[in-house]
């Protein structure tokens, strides 16, 4: 429905709710901040050197010396977890940026295309891209470029861009059809100015929510790729490969599989909550309108 051209009462509701921080936002923010803090601290300090096999306690249980135990070579798992967090954030931020830049650019171009054929072929292209699953995209990219962090970012980002661009096109088209945009065009405002002054400020809450979800998906995707051996190659520690290595010794050292798994669940849930929270915070009406 219309929605974005709110009259007086709606604006007031918007103003008052903007200050109300909701619980999803707090939970999501807290979960993401904890893991982000761990990732940042790992640049300054880790309990051990990541390749340090220590006293050689293999598959050691969690203890005061090794908080989450050791792996089959005796390396400290918490150190790997911390460095893995770094990688998770690099991939999440990188692929979200790729998805955002490609998705928003193409979405805006499609929405402001002058001819219907351009718009429709863009739309159509996104639809095929959306049908193209992330994992297959990743496999294609890895076949061509080899397994690396940049391949993972590229594949996950391109996959994510399809959904971003579709959302961007749909919501931008709606804004472009409103009376105030028509008025702005009548006043002689240039196209870029309309996009930056009217369209983007109105659609960015939706895009922000979607990009948060892309970040959550990117972390899951990176873990899957690393688990399949298609992610960042060793010695780069990653949660997915920690799980792969732990699988063989899950009977003797279950903590090796449990801890990285729970970490992934925590951060992904964190991003999901954050998305929900942002959605509620920025525009309470959006839920009803969509």
């Amino acid at each position, binding site marked *: 429905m219309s929605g974005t051209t709110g009259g007086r009462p709606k604006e007031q509701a918007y103003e008052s709710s903007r200050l109300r921080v909701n619980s999803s936002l707090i939970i999501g923010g807290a979960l993401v901040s904890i893991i982000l803090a761990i990732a940042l601290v790992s640049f300054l300090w880790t309990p051990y050197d990541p390749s340090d096999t220590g006293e050689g306690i293999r598959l050691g249980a969690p203890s005061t010396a090794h908080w989450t135990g050791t792996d089959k070579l005796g390396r400290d798992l918490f150190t790997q977890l911390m460095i893995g967090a770094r990688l998770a954030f690099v991939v999440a931020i990188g692929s979200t940026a790729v998805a955002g830049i490609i998705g928003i650019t193409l979405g805006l171009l499609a929405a402001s295309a002058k001819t219907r054929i351009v718009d429709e072929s863009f739309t*159509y*292209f996104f*639809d*095929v891209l*959306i*049908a*193209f*699953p*992330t*994992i*297959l995209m*990743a*496999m*294609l990219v*890895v*076949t*061509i470029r080899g397994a690396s962090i940049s391949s993972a970012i590229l594949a*996950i980002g391109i*996959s*994510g861009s*399809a*959904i971003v661009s579709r*959302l961007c096109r749909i919501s931008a088209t709606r804004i472009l059809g409103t009376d105030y945009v028509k008025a702005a065009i009548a006043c002689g405002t240039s196209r870029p100015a309309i996009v930056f002054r009217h369209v983007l400020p109105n659609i960015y809450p939706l895009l922000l*929510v*979607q990009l948060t*979800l*892309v*970040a*959550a*998906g*990117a972390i*899951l*995707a990176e*873990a*899957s*790729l690393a*688990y*399949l*051996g*298609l992610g960042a190659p060793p010695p780069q520690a990653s949660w*997915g490969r920690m*799980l792969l290595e*732990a*699988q063989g010794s*899950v*009977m003797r050292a*279950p903590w090796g*599989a*449990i801890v990285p*798994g729970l970490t*992934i*669940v925590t951060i*992904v*849930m964190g*991003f*999901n909550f954050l*998305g*929900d929270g942002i959605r509620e915070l920025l525009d309470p009406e959006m*839920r009803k309108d*969509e």
Partner: protein
Amino acid sequence: MRRYMIRRMALLTLSALLASSAVFFLLRTLPGDAALSMAGLEATPEQIQATRQQLGTDKPLWIQYFRWIGGMFHGDFGISYLSKLPVAAEIGRRLAVTLPLSLSAFCLATLISFPLGIIAAVRRKRPVGIGVSAVSSMGVAVPVFWVGIILIWLFALAVPIFPAGGFPLDGWADPWAAVRSLVLPVVTIAIVMSSTLIRYIRSAILDILGQDYLRTARSLGYSARAARWRHGVRNAAVPLVAIMSFELSTSLLGAVVIENVFAIPGLGAMLLSGVINRDLPVVQDIVFLITFFVLFIGFLADIVQRIIDPRLRGGSIDQRVVPDAMSEEEPSMGLRAESGRSKS
């Protein structure tokens, strides 16, 4: 309706062509000559040329592309660079494992999700509804392969009921052994799929429950239950078709990841080894087949939706009714963001 079907089929063909050419030409950007490595180190230039001719790589790219497409129509999927055997036969053997795996996962997930999704919607303010929603929202954040590892630990090692992985070498010759080795993978995929599915179903049902026509039916004397059956089910069916079609694709993609957790020799394992060995024909065939499957399921869903709801028939060609929660989702399993965050 017939006009719609023709247009929709044209769209499917176009999508398939677009996807296949993207896959084909992207993979050709890889440097290197397959004939060189296949013919071996001591091959004479003539032998290398002969291998090229056999592979068809001596022809221009666009001819190779049309040969590949044309070949697929009569079951010629090319020859694997690695095994030097026809890819089609191998895909057939692998599908005999992957299809049962993903279809049973799909059925199990559906059986779990429908009752739970409906409970979560109808009892949304009671503890049971809130509980179901909370557990399913946690489920969408779980990596599918991790569930597999945990299930292996619990039900193959700690309590050895099922094998930890692998598949009988003689395939389905011993059906009982084959089924036993597929139980854990199927349950793994179904658990992860259900959490998404429950959220979609809940949101689709919630949309329906708030509709005016249910209230009207009540005012006409229908009981709440009768109103839901008479008017609710058919209206809910339209978005549910979209959900089910999406989940059918998801179950196949889930199988691709999960086969590698349980060392099951299916299509996913074949694709992964193709990627690692840069076996182009294998990668391009499987990637295209899975993409085509996804596109085809979407095509069927569009047709079925229009059979159920004639109002859609006049609409735009690729208009599909999806519940709110789905419109911003990314269809991919294992690699999925947050599928099924419902908005209610």
